[in-house]
């Protein structure tokens, strides 16, 4: 897969508290907020039919299954983390055209959600949304 640029955010999964208390372990059954994992919009036909990155004009998003590893780089600071797929998401088509920027660097469209453990390694959880580059 060629490097994919876009936006990254974070999500909770597994045992947790508050609104996250009932979210479960994700589509792969392995997801935990404290693990270095991520959600990917194209894990299966069923997943793709929900996330629909194609509706945002995204092409080249490879079909990858549970456990496949991607490396995500925060384009605001150059920090990277390698994670494995544990869930389907984000729902890209709900935010088509959305941009996240820092300085002059921007990412368009939501292409990956990281667990809190992974996201907090390369960005602050309170930032919520950051431009990123993803490589396989």
């Amino acid at each position, binding site marked *: 897969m060629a490097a994919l640029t876009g936006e990254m*955010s*974070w*999500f*909770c999964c*597994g*045992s*947790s*508290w*508050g*609104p*996250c*208390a*009932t*979210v479960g372990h994700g589509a792969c059954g*392995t997801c*935990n*907020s*404290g*693990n*270095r*994992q991520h959600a990917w919009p194209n894990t299966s036909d069923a997943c793709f039919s929900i996330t629909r990155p194609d509706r945002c004009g995204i092409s080249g998003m490879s079909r990858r299954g549970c*456990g496949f*590893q991607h490396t995500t780089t925060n384009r605001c*600071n150059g*920090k990277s983390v*390698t*994670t*494995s797929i*544990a869930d389907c998401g*984000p*729902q890209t*088509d*709900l*935010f*088509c*055209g*959305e*941009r*996240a*920027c820092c300085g002059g660097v*921007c990412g368009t469209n939501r292409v990956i959600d990281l667990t*809190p*453990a*992974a996201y*907090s*390694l*390369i*960005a*602050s*959880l*309170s*930032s*919520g*949304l950051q431009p990123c580059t993803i490589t396989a």
Partner: protein
Amino acid sequence: MTDNTLDRRRLLTSAVVGGAGLVAASALGSLAPEAAFAAPQTIDAGAPDPNFAEGRITGIAAGMLYVTGSDTALHRIRITNATSVWKLIPTGIDAAAVGDGLYARGLRMDDGTLAADAVWINIVNLQAHIVAIGKNQLHLDHKGKRIVGHVVPGRSAVSYNNTPAVTDMSMLKVGRHVQVIGAWVPDTNEVQIATVYAGTHSH
């Protein structure tokens, strides 16, 4: 484990021992909430991160948060004056309360404590759609469950597709998909809104 990690551990150990007089772990990296990162690691993708903790606070004493993880693991999280703390706003450890949820990132010390670079108390990141709008409230549907989001004057803001965040939420409409960064309120199970990212589609 990298030399950098070892250096950080030595520094944080001295910081813990030194108490209030510590030099600050920021000597090896910023400790601001937006830039509190751990050193490079060799942790496998998919594996639990030993330098991260999640759970609810069960006790607070002498710069230490006692936390029970949602998986029942017990954590001792060391707070120094170099630790950044977020609870709706950047704040201090005095804002923490027993019963709060948290995520913490730092460095696991030899004695098992997590020397925290950053602690996010009660932070939530909701993917939801708006089902009703009230006075200073957004009623959200998050994975089929209703959550009340409270607008906090002087804090809550909304970003409409990468526009700079503004306090005016009047452009939010019922049905709009949103992402909400906020602080969960344990007593009510409601949320105080920090930032709303307004989606481009409606439900």
